[in-house]
């Protein structure tokens, strides 16, 4: 994966909205695929607006401050909020869920309007699995008998 400032911004944004760190986001190997997917769906202009809105927020020192500003300026925005939420779901589940019809009426139709998995790896790399101390069904199996042991959810 070749890095570009735009991709790095996307990774930083993704890390912030998922509460996984940048190394973990890069580690999925999916950041560029997702950025391309999102550009293809909503248009690069919308993605740019999202990343531009995040740029000043990213420089804030405290996580709480970043969260507050994100809630106000990104998740609270009619145009950017639904896209940001779709990106959170994409990272956690590995599925792109269509944007609400009200969004599409106001800001233009997305290239596809169905739920889809951008690449098989998306399901396998879903962040919800490490978030709950588990693994995706059918992949990354933890080994015979591991389920007998008490659970261990990694702290973050």
């Amino acid at each position, binding site marked *: 994966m070749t890095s570009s400032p735009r991709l790095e911004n996307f990774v930083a944004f993704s890390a*912030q*909205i*998922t*509460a*996984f760190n940048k190394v973990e986001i890069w580690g999925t190997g999916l950041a560029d695929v997702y950025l391309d997917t999102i550009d293809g769906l909503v248009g690069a202009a919308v993605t740019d607006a999202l990343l531009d809105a995040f740029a000043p927020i990213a420089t804030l020192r405290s*996580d709480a401050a970043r*969260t507050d500003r*994100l809630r106000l300026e990104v*998740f609270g925005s009619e145009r950017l909020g639904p896209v*940001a*939420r779709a990106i*959170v*779901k994409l990272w*956690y*589940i590995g*599925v792109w*869920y269509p944007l609400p019809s009200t969004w599409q009426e106001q800001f233009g139709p997305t290239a596809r309007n*169905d*739920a*889809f*998995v951008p*690449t*098989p*790896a998306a*399901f*396998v790399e879903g962040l*919800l*699995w490490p*978030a*709950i*101390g*588990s*693994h995706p*069904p*059918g*992949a990354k*199996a*933890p*080994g*015979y*008998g*591991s*389920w*007998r*042991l*008490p*659970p261990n*959810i990694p702290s*973050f």
Partner: protein
Amino acid sequence: MSEAAEFDVVIVGAGVAGALAAGQFAKSGLKVLVLEAGPDTTRDLASYNAHLETFYTASSKGAETPWPPAEGAPQPDGADLFKQEGYFVQRGPHLYGSTYTRTFGGSTLHWLGVSLRMLPEDFELRARHGVGRDWPIGYAALAPWYDRAEHAIGVSADVEEQRYHGLTFTAGYDYPMRRIPPSYSDRVLGAAVNSLEVDLGEERVAVRVRSYPAARNSIPRGDYQPIGALDIGSDGQERSTYIGERCEGNTACTPICPVQAKYNANKTFARADRRHLTLRSQAVASQILFDGVTGAVSGISYKRYDDPRSTSFNEEVATGRVYILAAHAVENAKLLLASGPQSGEGQVGRGLMDHPALYAWGLAPFNVGAFRGPQSSSGIEDFRAGGFRARHAAFRFDIGNDGWRAATGAPDATVIDAVTNQKLFGRQLRTQLADQLSRQVRMSLAVEQLPDPDNRVTIDPAYRDKFGNPRPVIDYRIADYTFEGMAAARKVAARIFRQAGIKDCSRSTAELRFPTAIYDGEEVHYHGMGHFAGTHAMGSDRSNSVVDEFQRSWDHPNLFLLGSGSFATMGTSNPTLTLAALALRTADHIIAKLHDGG
């Protein structure tokens, strides 16, 4: 029987029943042909793994997701239920909620692998409890075949844990592999409820969380060799690879075990002697040809296709001395009905059963490690027998290890709710998901159903598939006997949750993703278990059944019908182990007859 028959035995269906019978015949030196409707894309590792890819890429994942059917061999799909379309023609009043797979290997490709024996009293429901009907054979007659079936499909369990409700085992017998380790959540739940006693009518029942026998590879006993993932050698013979010799806890038995640690019918073919066995895939049996005088089968006509995506085919006929339908309970009945002379005095297709099931789900008081291990590893078997069966259905619970997945679509649905509705992101989201998902507990309450002649599979010339074969038309009604069993099961589940401090969420989030029935003024959301049974039931004489105790058709002396269609009643055990035992018993019976020159 034709002297010029090409094969000794022609078998329709490469599922578990057909595979077990074929393996026995080949071993005894009989020439066998297996006709399989679906494509042969599950026997080599690369093609099997392509099915895994199909599963990964689907945005919503059901039991059929990895196994898309060929145009000429359609199959029911869970999603059909909400679209009022699909393969089944459902005439109600209730929806039949189950599915099966028409690909080489059959429905064991996506089954869960629960391999319980039927209870002795399940074979004598009428004699003991005055309901249903009795089987022409009892538990004692079938027990040695259960032993063999458990070794043939590879079942993991510890025999001392399985002696309950009168289940006895051959002296010195144990399962081929040690039990699958119970999950952490099983152990937590067991610690909380194993002292509980519940009143059911006049009976007091002690509850115990017990690991169930599973057809998933575990640590072998003695010289038993687990069969892992298969690959085909250049000689056309499947062989076990080193992958999948132990269950790895992939939490995906249904719909696809990625490492094939779970039994599927191809493992039986892998062990079979290929010199005597011909496997013909993409061959949809469409008619049984009868000798007008004797009623004996003279051939099976089938439609062969080259391209699974096309609707063109060639018709061919296979001939043998003996014919076996092992195409699944619904397809067996359909094939017989489509073949002209009515068999079994109009009884073919009647008595269709399932285990309609409810979910109970809740939040445990602390992290129980949900979403780890096989989808389930334990159950509660204590309500499978008792005097209450004179009044209402028996039931068993399957205790999930995969949170609320089956009931609500978790974890995806939980994430979507948190992000879209609760507007969470970042730390708050991650914290909440870790807290909620890890505490999710789910039980399936699978309830017995009695044979009702009006619950049936029929055919209607108005409804055909793309090859012109009839589609199954289904009449299905859940009777009060079962609804009352459901009500009792629900009460027991609520009591168990209370005892374990689990917050019951079953009702508050009741979804309409399942078929709905109204009973006693209340909506009941149930789902099918995939346990089709009773469509060609066995009995003691031709007036009350389609086949005899060896699954031989009363009307067609060289025709045998294998599978859970032969069940007179189904009790509460998942059907496959029992149909496997019956298939082995039938195969040995046929071999003895053929070697006698009969």
